[in-house]
């Protein structure tokens, strides 16, 4: 099992979710994060002063899948989340040693 962590642009979330649904992905967990990277932030103005705000709102998607699904999930995310402009985000693959479904207590591939 692997965990796929994708950092994407927030407005791409719906598209990514849909693509993953089509792939048969049944579960995922999402959270709001702030990203720093090559993409520049923006300026905010406050009573005559100007501030650089260097973080950008991003969405983090976490999906645990069986190892054989990894490639297709990554491809699907790339396809859906890509705008081609800087700041599209990253995908990281992390090993998972075990997964447990709380409701049933079952573990292993059938738990995800």
């Amino acid at each position, binding site marked *: 099992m692997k965990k796929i962590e994708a950092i994407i642009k927030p407005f791409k979330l719906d598209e990514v979710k849909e693509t993953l649904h089509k792939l048969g992905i049944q579960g995922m967990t999402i959270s709001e994060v702030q990203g720093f990277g090559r993409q520049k932030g923006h300026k*905010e*103005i*406050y*009573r*005559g*002063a*100007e*501030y650089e*705000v260097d973080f950008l709102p991003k969405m983090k998607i976490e999906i645990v899948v069986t190892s054989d699904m990894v490639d297709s999930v990554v491809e699907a995310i790339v396809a859906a989340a890509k705008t081609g402009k800087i700041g599209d985000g990253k995908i990281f693959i992390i090993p998972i040693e075990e997964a447990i479904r709380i409701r049933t207590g079952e573990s292993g591939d059938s738990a995800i």
Partner: protein
Amino acid sequence: MIDTGDTAFMLLAAALVMLMTPGLALFYGGLVRTKNVLGTMMQSFICLGIVSIIWVFYGYSLAFGPDIGGIIGSLAFFGHKGVGMEPGPYSDTIPHLTFSAFQLMFAIITPALITGAFAERMKFSGFLLFTVLWSTFVYMPVCHWVWGGGWLGSLGALDFAGGTVIHINSGVAALAAALVIGKRKGYQKQPIYPHNLTLTVLGVALLWFGWFGFNAGSALSANGTASMAFFTTQVATGVAALSWILMEKIHRGKPTTLGAASGALAGLVAITPAAGFVGPVSSVIIGFLAGMICYSGILLKEKLGYDDSLDVVAIHGLGGFWGALATGLFATVGATGLFSGNPKQFVIQLVAVVSVMAFSFIASLILLKLVDVTVGLRVSEEEEIQGLDLTQHGETGYSL
């Protein structure tokens, strides 16, 4: 004889002015960081309690009691003795108590205005003590000088609704406070943002609304003067909002919502002393320049480097200053200013303004130092990092 129209007008005007203090709490509350929102709102809100109790006992009497040497009122009205349901010395058509209620609301908001200067770092206990002292030893005398039969009123100084008594007075005290308490941790190193501008816009809306009571009510009667004051208030405020965002557009490329709100406030402040003395077109000019002057005042602060957190000096101090002088320039209704051939008025305005500035600055400095060495002015560094809400009040603003 009591006139029901005037009494209705003044009671409602007093209610409107009362609403300005919570309006200010929202305005200021939105501008600070989340961790200080309640502490900041509390400092305005509790003035409604502190000043009311002072007022009932000795405050009104000091400000409006029988004059002693042009300097202060006597304690003849202690506990509101003799201030009742019949007309008093300040108006023949409304109950004396209505006049007192109306004036009480002014006395409440003035110290609340100052809190913007020391926002995000003042001890609550220190704030309480300072407010009691400042109300007693600064507000009451200055109010007496101008409106209560004191020397500035006798001199002929024009202050329709409190440009000098309220705005210059609080603005100068704010400067003293910012200097004595020092900068916030991180000021000019890290950006310090407003945490909720919807509160700030709401706040300025309530201030604007309440200010009609403030300015038109200062006519003490539902008459033509009140109408003029109402009209010029609306126009100067709207125009100042526009001129402020125009400045922003030129200077920073974008007009901001906070700019519109701040400009409106600047306009309200500047038209206050002039409201019933000038005509509609003059109010356009006063408002337009108010936006520009107060915006520049903020830039100046950035340069000078003192930390007047929420710009009380630039908006109330400078705005009140401009308004008081503008009254001496543009007055045409029930009085005449420089532009109508009465240069003397302008000089009187200058004298009044400078006297109040000097007195308020020095007296405020002394009181601040006094508080500092007794209960203390400033929270510890750790408390400042954690925020006033948790450390001073054991609360958090939001758990969304």
